[in-house]
């Protein structure tokens, strides 16, 4: 009897939370097909907001900026973050690495606003022009930590008996790296890179602070449209944006689950 009750309570809350989470998204998608200019009342099905959207050059421009920034941030943060994870794991007991760990952990806790304002203040004091470069620098900074921790998690699950087994079978360091370590860590590195890419694409707050005139990214564009533009276009833009990130995320998730399964099986032993 008690079991049934607590399950009922938790089920009730769970259903409530699911509705709470999906109601706004469902509304948004519906409204993007609404003919009315200001939303609210439904005045008929229409695709005209999608047409307007695809003819808007500034949106296309912002999309290009977003992809460029995300690509650069991903490349650099993946390299830096993977190296960091490797050192953190290889020299676990060194005091330097304890500080290093703290340094990598801290950006995850600090709110975006603080990271944005502090970078802005530094760029202004150094008289650096704000633009795509400063945005990329900032994005690399917050992506490094996420990449490092994703790869580190992989390294911690790594079964080091495999290295011994390879040594036992006659392999030297180079061969072990190429044949054993790299293929087993690659899914972790790819996961880290994908995370960096999506985080960079998603970022609004930091970009808002450190961006300049020529560096409008899609989220910044969405923000200014939300503040000033006609809402109906944003509906359409949101749905397109959402469809793209959803697809990327689903593909990535499926890919990751497949790739990670064999080594997970080993880790469970």
């Amino acid at each position, binding site marked *: 009897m008690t079991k049934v009750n607590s399950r009922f309570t938790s089920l009730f809350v769970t259903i409530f939370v699911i509705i709470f989470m999906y109601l706004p998204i469902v509304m948004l998608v519906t409204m993007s097909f609404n003919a009315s200019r200001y939303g609210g009342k439904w005045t008929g099905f229409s695709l005209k907001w999608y047409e307007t959207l695809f003819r808007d050059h500034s949106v296309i421009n912002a999309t290009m900026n977003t992809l460029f920034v995300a690509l650069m941030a991903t490349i650099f943060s993946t390299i830096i973050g993977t190296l960091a994870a490797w050192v953190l794991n290889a020299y676990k007991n060194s005091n330097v690495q304890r500080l290093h760990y703290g340094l990598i952990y801290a950006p995850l806790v600090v709110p975006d606003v603080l990271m944005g304002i502090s970078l802005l203040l530094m760029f202004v004091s150094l008289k650096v022009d704000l633009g795509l470069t400063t945005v990329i620098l900032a994005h690399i900074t917050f992506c490094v930590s996420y990449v490092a921790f994703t790869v580190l998690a992989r390294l911690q699950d790594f079964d080091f008996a495999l290295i011994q087994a390879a040594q036992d079978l006659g392999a030297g360091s180079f061969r072990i790296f190429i044949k054993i370590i790299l293929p087993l860590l690659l899914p972790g590195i790819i996961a880290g890179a994908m995370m960096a890419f999506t985080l960079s694409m998603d970022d609004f707050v930091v970009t808002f602070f450190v961006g300049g005139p020529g560096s409008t990214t899609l989220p910044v564009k969405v923000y200014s449209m939300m503040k000033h533009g006609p809402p109906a276009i944003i509906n359409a833009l949101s749905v397109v944006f959402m469809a793209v990130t959803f697809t990327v995320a689903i593909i990535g998730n499926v890919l990751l689950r497949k790739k990670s399964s064999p*080594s997970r099986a080993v880790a469970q032993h």
Partner: protein
Amino acid sequence: MDFFELGNLQKYFGENHVVDDASFCVKRGEVFSLLGPSGCGKTTILRMIGGFEEPDGGKIFLDNEEITNLPPNKRKINTVFQNYALFPHMSVRDNIAFGPRTSGIKEAEVEKMVDEMLEIIRLKDLGDRMPANISGGQKQRIAIARALINKPKLLLLDEPLAALDLKLRQYMLLELDRIHDEVGTTFIYVTHDQGEAMSLSDRIAVMNNGKIEQIGTPAEIYENPKTRFVASFIGDTNFFEGTVTENIDREYTKIDMVGLGEYPAYNDKKFEKGDRVTVSIRPEKFSIFMKEPGDNLNNCEGVVEDIVYQGAQTRYWVRVKDYRINVVMQHNRCSLDFKQPTWGDKVWVAWHRDDVTLLESPH
């Protein structure tokens, strides 16, 4: 010099003396086991032989060559790891082929060797599977094949059956024996399971607290343990404290077993009059009689306290003064005087003086 020799090996982990002066020899083609409770240092010895751990003292020789300080990839030794350590991102074939490919053997030749190995381990159809998709017993055999394909002079097996369930373990024991007969490689086998060691090994080294207590064939170790630890770790036994009162002749001695009286016993360790000894008698060496047996058997009188029926045999605990003697009797109608004793029965426990092992007393 023997095929493989380990001389005065030492290893410390911090303050812990985990391997204390271990020495033994292994003959070519032998199955040699290191047997002991967990933490006794047996795995550490194996890891030093494999090159995964550096000894703090002592030497290791393989086939007239000192290998003490060679790295693992330079030794003609391969290891079967406890949890198999199969490469999860490689197929069964690629796992087995890893060694030959590493040493630069031509691909056509490698393929042939792998086929041969798959034949030996009888898993021809599993070559293209991934390690995640095969059973524990199969993984075990693949780990063995992956090691044996390199034609090692010595194969190290680190608790290879520990991760398997009982049925599979018994089957794999036979498989291991068969594979050994087929390839003839020298095996060093680490286990904490005396059953495995007894059934597989030519010789066994029993270890305790970093020291090798005794080396011998399974029968020697069971029938003639050298120390109290070996006697109690291998099989069950009853211990009695006593003192040598008289050397009857060169072979037999009279022992005063505390509280029981004087009995003759076989004395192969040359204990002298006045020496304090521990007497070890295994449960199956005792017989229970309902009336007093003849003079040629040592015996004492007691009362049956506990009976545990175990199918093939029955285990009795007989109270004799301060002792609870553990006796195992087979159910067998050839035995004379066959009447099953029951709780509270007054019985005689008898043993032959040759079935007694005298050990150094800890006191």
